[in-house]
């Protein structure tokens, strides 16, 4: 299965699990969890430096060196296209011209649901400026397709609200997106436990991005490894082609259809 790589913007990755770096107790837990996850792409946020504070202490990128990980700066906290674009220009400068970014424009602070018109506007600008945009989006199949047509290198629909852990609420819309969009489709946000990640992959997603499900588990490092296995399991199950479901069919008139084959 060595051949089954995730291709994003022309680069191949062995791991289909992308992880965030927020909400951990400390950098050490962050590092151990991310190593257990096997993730090669990790998202980071861009924030003002704390002037005159903790000058000496290590920074996140010392713990997660760009030499080992593909750093994916995001625009978490941005509620309009302008802020998102400005944030990612800074990120690109910060990362020596690295252009793969996660665009995320939120609609409001309570639901953190994406603001799609602003996301589309930002994507257009960023693509024009040479960014390789992975876009967090709603599960609207029409707008996901539009993001692809604007030049995004991946679309990342939510499974459910950010940080909710509610899992895959609407598999049908995800299936339409997967069926129509040619660039990689990654489920971003809403994963709560390992089986949720497996379900996403079984639908045919190319990958999964998560943060809270790992960071807020009782044991983040063990959960990170569980997620690694779940994404691999879901991917292999998708490739292996599951058996057909055979619900019991109440139909005395057609006993054949009602017949459930036994497993021995």
């Amino acid at each position, binding site marked *: 299965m060595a051949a089954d790589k995730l291709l994003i913007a022309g680069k191949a990755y062995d791991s289909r699990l992308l992880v965030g770096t*927020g*909400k951990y107790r400390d950098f050490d837990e*962050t590092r151990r969890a991310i190593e257990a996850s096997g993730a090669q792409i990790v998202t*980071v946020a*861009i*924030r*003002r*430096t704390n002037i005159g504070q903790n000058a000496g202490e290590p920074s996140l990128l010392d713990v997660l060196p760009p030499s080992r990980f593909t750093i994916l700066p995001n625009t978490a906290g941005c509620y309009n296209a302008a802020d998102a674009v400005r944030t990612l220009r800074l990120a690109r400068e*910060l*990362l020596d011209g690295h252009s793969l970014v996660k665009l995320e424009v939120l609609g409001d602070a309570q639901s953190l649901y994406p603001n799609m018109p602003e996301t589309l506007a930002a994507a257009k600008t960023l693509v024009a400026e040479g960014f390789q945009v992975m876009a967090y989006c709603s599960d609207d199949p029409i707008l996901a397709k539009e993001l692809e047509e604007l030049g995004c290198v991946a679309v990342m629909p939510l499974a459910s609200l950010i940080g909710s852990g509610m899992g895959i609420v609407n598999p049908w819309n995800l299936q339409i997106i997967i069926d129509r969009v040619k660039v990689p489709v990654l489920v971003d946000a809403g994963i709560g436990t390992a089986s949720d990640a497996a379900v996403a992959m079984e639908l045919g997603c190319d990958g999964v991005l998560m943060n809270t499900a790992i960071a807020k588990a009782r044991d983040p490092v063990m959960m990170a490894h569980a997620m690694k296995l779940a994404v691999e399991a879901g991917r292999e199950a998708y490739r292996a082609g599951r058996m057909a479901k055979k619900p019991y069919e109440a139909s005395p008139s057609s006993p054949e259809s009602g017949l459930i084959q036994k497993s021995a």
Partner: protein
Amino acid sequence: MAICVTLNGSPREFPAPLTFVELLDELDLAGKRIAVERNGEIVPRSRFPEARLMDGDRIEVVVAVGGG
């Protein structure tokens, strides 16, 4: 002559115009992985040695932090 700039949202005085290299030294950020914006425009790292802060500049100095 002294200049006053807005640094990450807070006012800050300097006795004289200084380069971004000098600014980062001043802030103990020399060698750190940061990015700088002046009045909404990126200041490329290559220009840190000669580019000088002007009075009234709005400066943002950012870093990567944990996030999802």
